[in-house]
């Protein structure tokens, strides 16, 4: 009985300790934005990695999502004789919800996992120790450019996702179901308001911060708790980073939606 109580206590203490360490890491990450070294070219490089190289996967996801939304939307709306509102249904679903969430999840899976693995390998290879011994803050040198780049790239990718998704819906709605193109685009224009777009932007910025925070944190502390610095620890860290980031993105999505609706 005592053993179980001790176990629960140990787990609770570990959990609180980890949360505290994540909080300190978050503050160091933010502080790194204003500390040297200069960040212009590292940020440009990271924007290319996080943003430009995600264009194909986001475009593909958005197109197929828009097409599926139109298929399902037409089926539902036809029960009420409201097929003319298909454009609005697709656009609002994408701009308010699916655009930011799918972009966040896809970029986490692609770029977040790569960042975690990169930083994890640097940890096990003593490269982060080398930075500290050169009096260079690893948070300012490694992490802050990634955060700034994600804050630039994710809203842009989300907007791109929304546009491509609406186009995907157009292909199905107009091309397949024969809805008038003017009716489709008119319903999009009439239904979408600034607060819908604003919600999408707030979500994409929140997801960017969560993704970078969690993925780089897991990479930074790879093997530290186990005291074992090997490839297996990198793989564990990467898996945990993607899973935890995805869960937090979905939770954050609910919170932001409930606050802004």
């Amino acid at each position, binding site marked *: 009985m005592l053993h179980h109580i001790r176990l629960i206590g140990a787990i609770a203490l570990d959990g609180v300790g980890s949360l505290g360490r994540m909080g300190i890491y978050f503050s160091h990450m933010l502080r790194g934005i204003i500390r*040297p070294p200069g960040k212009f070219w590292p940020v440009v490089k990271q924007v290319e990695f996080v943003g430009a190289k995600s264009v194909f996967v986001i475009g593909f996801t958005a197109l197929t999502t828009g097409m599926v939304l139109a298929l399902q939307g037409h089926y539902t709306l036809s029960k009420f004789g409201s097929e003319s509102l298909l454009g609005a249904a697709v656009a609002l679903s994408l701009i308010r919800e699916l655009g930011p969430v799918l972009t966040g999840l896809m970029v986490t899976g692609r770029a977040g996992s790569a960042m975690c693995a990169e930083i994890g390998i640097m940890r096990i*290879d*003593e*490269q982060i120790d*080398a930075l*500290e*011994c050169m009096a260079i803050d690893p948070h300012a*040198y490694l992490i802050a450019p990634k955060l700034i780049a994600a804050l630039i790239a994710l809203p842009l990718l989300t907007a791109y996702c929304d546009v491509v998704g609406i186009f995907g819906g157009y292909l199905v709605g107009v091309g397949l179901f024969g809805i008038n193109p003017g009716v489709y685009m008119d319903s999009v224009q009439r239904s979408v308001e600034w607060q819908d777009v604003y919600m999408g932007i707030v979500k994409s910025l929140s997801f960017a911060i969560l993704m970078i925070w969690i993925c780089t944190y897991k990479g930074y502390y790879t093997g530290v708790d186990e005291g074992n610095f090997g490839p297996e620890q990198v793989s564990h860290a990467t898996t945990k980073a993607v899973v935890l980031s995805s869960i937090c993105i979905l939770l954050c999505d609910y919170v932001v939606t409930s606050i802004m609706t």
Partner: protein
Amino acid sequence: MADSCMIDIRGLDSYYGDRQVLFNIRFGIPRNQITVIMGMSGCGKTTLLRHLIGLKRSPPGQLIVDEEDLGTFDEVKMNGFRRRIGVMFQSGALFNSMTVGENIAVPLKVHTRLSKSTIRIIATIKLHQVGLSEFIDYMPSQLSGGMQKRAGLARSLAMDPEILFVDEPSSGLDPITAAGLDNLILELKDTFGMTIIVVTHELESAFHIADQMIVLDEGRLLSAGAPQDIQASRDVRVVQFLKRQADQKQEDNEAYVKRLVGDRSKRMQ
């Protein structure tokens, strides 16, 4: 000891959680000389090195560098200390996404306002010191293990440190390359008057370069002094270490059989 002592370790204890790994370590590292820290695997050499370079926090009063207590340093003072040191890690710890020249340029770009061309000249000079000047535009993955170590050494020299820490310079190297690295370390001391601390368990290398040696065993200081004093030591563990004699296992046969039988009887229940 105090006047010529660059680093003074005064009863250093170190822990990983509840497990103590260093016990009351006391010795001084003299200025402008090569000090070799030796010992078996797991004796605490790397932990001691991490304390000396500030990667592991030292308790106040236990680690004095140039009459300043490293244990009381805040972030600013610690960064000031780290700008005076260079560290060569065991595997080189080169940044894989950069060329060798870009690796050496990292501290120069961050801490100085030198132009790109000047930085490249300095990087070339540092690589020339370690015999790698023609590899300035190579990626680390294109270099052999020995060359990566030398490139790591060149990076540690980029800011002309007063104190150089070298972690296992000869491990994994062939005898010729290891000898070359040893000679390079000696040259650095003779030419630049650097204080150099080398962590190694390679005896030949240690005796070739050391002005002073420290032998650790299970977290404790076993012996310290000039190489000839270490060689002449009559301490059983020092002699065993120098003569590369394996531990004699004295296992109780009965206890061993009970362990085996005990396991089998648990499985049969």
